[in-house]
């Protein structure tokens, strides 16, 4: 069915029928209106006929009555003989005597005229004073002219014609509604079908718009309106005869024009080109394109300029505006406009200033966060434009890049620690054997003195290697933050007391005097006790190893500005020809000979551990005096 309707011949037939139905509909409407005005729905058929031919009847009544009254012979009288007209009449005088007739006086009359007889210079004359369908009772001084029509209208005269027409109209007066509604329905149905199949072809889902649809719609629209206007103009200029002909000819082409336009609109809507394919749209689009190109060009130009030049241009524009405003102010005629302009300019500058200040603040915050090491901070560039946006994005990129770098560094440090841990484990297994067997050799003393000496060196160095390995693992963990610190409130005095207790004997054995000084009262610090012991162990171990025989080792604790301050002091037996910084650097030792036992990691580990526990670690060297100061914040 669908394909059937899409065929061209079917379309054409539909199109033709549609126009005809539109005309029928219009004609029906016009007819119904005319019928209503003419009284087809309120009066009887006879009355309608009488109304229609009223002029003729009145003429007939006048002629016959006046000739009868005056006795003059009107030439037309013969026209009203029964053979020549369908009109049947009878004229009665005052006393209801028949004066003139062309038929039997009996029968039903359908209309009456009443005349009064007056004397004039030319003798008596009759004047029609009244007419009507119903006979009046009081006919004093009045003559009555009654009429009716011959049954079947045997004579061909205007009465027969009008009777025929009125009869048709009367018969059609209700049918006209049915015809109008029916043709309207058919017209709408066909129009819908035509609009739906416009630009369609059988067996295809694609649109095939005709050539007409390529013409811009507004042109078509204007042409159609002009044609309608021209038609209306022609109609209004016609006389009634021409109008009848014109009304017969003009509506159909106009109907086809209308239907064609509707189909074109439907096709364009389907193509979504109703608005776009118009001259107005094309002109607007072109204009918009030009303007946007111009704008973009200007923006690109401005962007490509260095910031300084941009600022210069802005300032120059501002200056020019100022100049214009000043010039306008000088002129009385336009000073109000000048004030308005100045206010507008001030508002814009105010807004721009606030905008710039706001985003400067944002950027500053972002940069500050970066400077403070908060790499997770991202500057919100939402709402920023121009250089601000660029700057904000750069800041974000810096933070990203730095984050990545830091992450990479941490990763590599972790890998390093893992490597050191694994390698040290692998080294420890053979080292175990080395230590064990050098122990065995040392135990089996033989006579060869050199042999004993060598085995002792082996033993000592392998022990040294063992300590070195442990320290290596520890320092790498401490430096990469892979060491877990379990903070708990510790009694700083008890810590020092315990450490000094552990070392008292060893100091005495090394010929050193250990002097401990701890203040009264509890001093609490947040620290990991085991790590603290490791720090003290390293410091005291160094003191025992490197102090001058017979000297004193001072360890003390004191409260100072909310800090618990530990001090370790000893006198070196070797010359301290290094800086404190070099001392804590890995693998650097106080004595440059590197022959004695121990390694340079002790101080470095101590420093790392102290710093991991939020403390500070300082070393001072004053001549032979070695002094280490550790400070931790006191907690309540």
């Amino acid at each position: 069915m669908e394909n059937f309707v899409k065929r061209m011949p079917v379309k054409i037939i539909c199109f033709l029928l549609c126009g005809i139905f539109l005309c029928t509909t219009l004609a029906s409407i016009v007819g119904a209106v005319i019928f209503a005005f003419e009284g087809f729905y309120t009066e009887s058929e006879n009355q309608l006929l009488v109304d229609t031919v009223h002029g003729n009847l009145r003429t007939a009544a006048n002629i016959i009555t006046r000739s009868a009254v005056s006795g003059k012979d009107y030439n037309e009288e013969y026209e009203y003989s029964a053979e020549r007209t369908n009109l049947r009449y009878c004229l009665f005088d005052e006393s209801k005597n028949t004066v003139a007739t062309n038929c039997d006086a009996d029968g039903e009359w359908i209309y009456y005229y009443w005349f009064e007889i007056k004397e004039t210079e030319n003798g008596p004359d009759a004047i029609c004073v009244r007419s009507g369908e119903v006979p009046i009772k009081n006919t004093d001084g009045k003559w009555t002219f009654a009429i009716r029509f011959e049954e079947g209208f045997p004579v061909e005269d205007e009465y027969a014609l009008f009777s025929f027409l009125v009869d048709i109209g009367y018969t059609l007066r209700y049918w006209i509604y049915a015809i109008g509604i029916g043709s309207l329905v058919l017209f709408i149905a066909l129009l819908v079908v035509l609009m739906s199949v416009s630009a369609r072809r059988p067996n295809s889902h694609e649109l095939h718009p005709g050539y007409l649809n390529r013409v811009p719609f507004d042109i078509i629209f204007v042409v159609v309106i002009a044609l309608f206007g021209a038609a209306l103009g022609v109609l209004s200029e016609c006389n009634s005869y021409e109008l009848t002909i014109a009304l017969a000819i003009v509506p159909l082409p106009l109907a086809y024009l209308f239907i064609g336009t509707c189909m074109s609109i439907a096709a364009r809507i389907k193509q979504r080109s109703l608005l776009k394919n118009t001259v107005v749209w094309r002109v607007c689009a072109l204009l918009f394109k030009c303007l946007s190109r111009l704008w973009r060009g200007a923006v690109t130009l401005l962007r490509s300029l260095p910031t300084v030049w941009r600022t210069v241009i802005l300032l120059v524009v501002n200056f020019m505006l100022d100049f214009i405003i000043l010039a306008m102010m000088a002129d009385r005629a336009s000073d109000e406009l000048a004030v308005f302009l100045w206010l507008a300019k001030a508002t814009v500058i105010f807004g721009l200033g606030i905008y710039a200040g706001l985003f400067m603040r944002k950027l500053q915050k972002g940069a500050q966060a970066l400077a403070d090491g908060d790499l997770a901070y991202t500057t919100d560039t939402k709402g920023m434009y121009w250089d601000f946006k660029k700057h904000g994005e750069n800041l974000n990129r810096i933070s990203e890049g730095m984050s990545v770098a830091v992450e990479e560094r941490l990763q590599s440090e972790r890998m390093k620690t893992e490597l050191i841990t694994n390698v040290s484990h692998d080294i420890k297994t053979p080292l175990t054997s080395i230590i064990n067997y050098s122990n065995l050799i040392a135990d089996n003393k033989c006579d060869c003195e050199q042999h004993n000496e060598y085995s002792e060196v082996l033993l000592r160095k392998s022990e040294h290697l063992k300590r070195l390995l442990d320290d290596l693992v520890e320092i790498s963990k401490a430096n990469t933050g892979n060491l877990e610190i379990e903070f708990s409130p510790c009694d700083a005095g008890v810590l020092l007391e315990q450490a000094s207790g552990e070392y008292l004997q060893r100091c005495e054995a090394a010929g050193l005097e250990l002097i401990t000084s701890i203040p009264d009262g509890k001093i609490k610090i947040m620290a990991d006790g085991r790590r603290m012991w490791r720090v003290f162990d390293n410091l005291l171990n160094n003191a025992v190893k490197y102090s001058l025989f017979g000297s004193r080792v001072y360890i003390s604790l004191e409260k100072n500005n909310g800090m618990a301050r530990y001090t370790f002091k000893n006198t070196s037996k070797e010359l301290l020809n290094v800086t404190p910084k070099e001392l804590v650097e890995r693998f650097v030792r106080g004595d440059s000979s590197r022959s004695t036992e121990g390694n340079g990691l002790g101080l470095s580990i101590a420093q790392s551990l102290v710093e991991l526990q939020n403390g500070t670690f300082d070393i001072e060297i004053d001549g032979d005096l070695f002094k280490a100061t550790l400070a931790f914040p006191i907690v309540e």
Partner: protein
Amino acid sequence: MYNILICDDDQDIINALKIFLSDPEYSLFEANNGKQAIELIEKEEMHLVLMDIMMPEMDGISAMVHIRRKNNVPVILITAKSEASDMILGLNVGADDYITKPFNPIEVAARVKSQIRRYTQLGAAQMKPKTISVGGIELDDNAKTVTRDGMPIQLTPTEYEILKLLMQNLGRVYSPKEIYKEIWRESPYSADNTVAVHIRHIREKIEINPAEPRYLKAVWGHGYVMEGDKQWKTL
């Protein structure tokens, strides 16, 4: 005769251990991995197992779990110090002691001896009244004597009192001040490391390796505590 199984993938270490543990009282067996160790334990009755953690085929921890299903033979783990987590795991699944690599021959011998003594004799020993025992340490308050694995230990009266105080209150941490007050019945002078020095001495006497105490431990920044049998395993 006590049967001792030495289990390590390094033959040199086994040989060295064999020399250190050469004693007419010990009969030594060797295994190179966990599987061999389990097979040997099923064949022969062992009185002690020395086991390395890192071994091919079956590691020390898995072997431990396997052995503990039907046997309560003492097991000493030999491990590199860096593997702290492995060590704790081993102790938790039933090891009795541990030695860190590289080890001290004397320490190994002492720990072996201690474990064997406790395994073979302690259960049968009659508990005397007023005797406190922690692990291998026994304090007889009647005779005022202290023994470790049955060996008498010479302590000064002060050291004895301190040890008694801590042993009577296992697991309780005493600050140096508290210990001082309890023992000397008076307040200490400030900057007094007397208690710390005494503790150090006691430790040197009762611990096999004073640097790695098993019983008398320092809680740094707080004080000292005596830890009960196997309590130290949770570290």
